[in-house]
């Protein structure tokens, strides 16, 4: 039996349109936008700058401070603005996904602020946020070992699929839906992986392989966006 996705996508197909744009916020040291289907994220980077409060300074290496926020109009039902349990968690996750590639040891006692805002949300927001943040960090001229690209793999009933939208995330037939956001470098090194739902280890491997291919695709889009802004 071949599983059919409601929007007619193949299992390993990403949502369209995928847009990336760099340098959207003139006041920031680096900024970027990333759109995947109906999900749009914007990221702004400020710094490296003086770290306040002083007691949180690290004299060995710099600090990366991420702030993820969903704007109140980003979903159909207005969400209450301000930090929530969910947004604090995703902020932390984003930090962990980006820290392995950012060379913070060059900026002891300093901080790099990354602000991520979702202006439209339709599942996969943390992935869109990480993609935008990676581009914004590069645009800010911060030394990085590599770029990172993020994509969510998933499972609908028994089929492994890629890049679920909100409608698919709420899928409840059979085994239901599983969501696996993965962040990796173009070399295939994973910096972040989460799993929400049930999956066999065999299918998890399949999902990672799928995400690896898709992250290369996203990397090319990020690369193109960064090169475009310099030529302008």
């Amino acid at each position: 039996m071949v599983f059919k996705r409601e929007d007619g996508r193949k299992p390993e197909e990403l949502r369209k349109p995928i847009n990336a744009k760099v340098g959207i916020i003139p006041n920031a040291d680096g900024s970027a936008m990333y759109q995947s289907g109906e999900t749009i994220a914007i990221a702004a980077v400020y710094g490296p700058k003086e770290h306040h409060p002083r007691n949180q300074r690290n004299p060995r290496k710099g600090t990366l401070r991420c702030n993820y926020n969903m704007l109140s109009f980003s979903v159909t039902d207005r969400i209450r603005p301000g930090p929530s349990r969910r947004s604090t968690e995703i902020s932390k996750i984003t930090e962990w996904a980006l820290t392995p590639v950012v060379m913070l040891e060059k900026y002891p006692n300093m901080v790099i602020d990354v602000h991520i805002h979702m202006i439209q949300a339709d599942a996969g927001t943390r992935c869109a946020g990480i993609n935008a943040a990676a581009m914004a960090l590069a645009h800010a001229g911060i030394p990085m070992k590599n770029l990172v690209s993020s994509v969510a793999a998933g499972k609908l009933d028994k089929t492994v699929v890629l890049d679920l939208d909100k409608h698919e995330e709420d899928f409840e037939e059979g085994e239901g839906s599983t969501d696996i956001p993965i962040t990796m470098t173009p070399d295939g090194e994973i910096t972040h992986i989460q799993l929400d739902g049930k999956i066999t280890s065999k299918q998890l491997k399949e999902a990672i392989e799928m995400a690896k291919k898709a992250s290369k695709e996203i990397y090319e889009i990020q690369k193109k966006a960064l090169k475009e802004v310099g030529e302008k």
Partner: protein
Amino acid sequence: MSENTRKIIIPGEIIVKGEEFLPGDGTEKRGQEIVALRYGLAEESNKLVKVIPLSGVYQPRRGNVVIGQVENINFNGWFLNIGAVDNGFLSLMEVPRYVNKDGLEEVMKIGDSVVVKIWSINKRGIDLSIKSRGLGKIEEGLIIKVNPNKVPRIIGKEGSMIKMIKDETGCNITVGQNGLIWIKGDKIENELYAKKAILFVAEKSFISGLTDEVKKWFESENKGGKK
């Protein structure tokens, strides 16, 4: 003297392959390959590969002439904001004449702008100097701010660009490496004219053959100005 082809590079991208190349600023050697660590223009000369930054905050370097603003005063010097992460410190010893311990404000008070040179950068901070020609407190004129990464274009090859702007507008211009530019002319109109020219250069900084472009711009401006 080969014409270097510069191309935009992103972090993690391979610039060149080969054992003979040496990694310079903003690059790293991984096995046989020279890999970029930051976003910018890749340049290769004499087997040395480096990345010229296009964006980001100002990175102070020894010997840079910068324009700073007095932020704080203590008993033996002034703290200047030079647009870098650390504040710069200008010692009282740098002032050639005798200054009373309570009279530091009389020389430079909080909010004053000063042209300074970066003397040294160490763990404690940045030490500044004003013991050189062209340095010192700014008494009058106009200070404008541009992106620090565009300063090399504003100065031009061996100062060609800034010399042309100076000649055309009749203003005295000091370009700080931190992106602050001090314009001083006889008339305010001339200062504003110079400001317009500099902002034009900063905006068009990506064009090759920029000096000719600016020459044309001056010609068209002069025609319109005389009527």
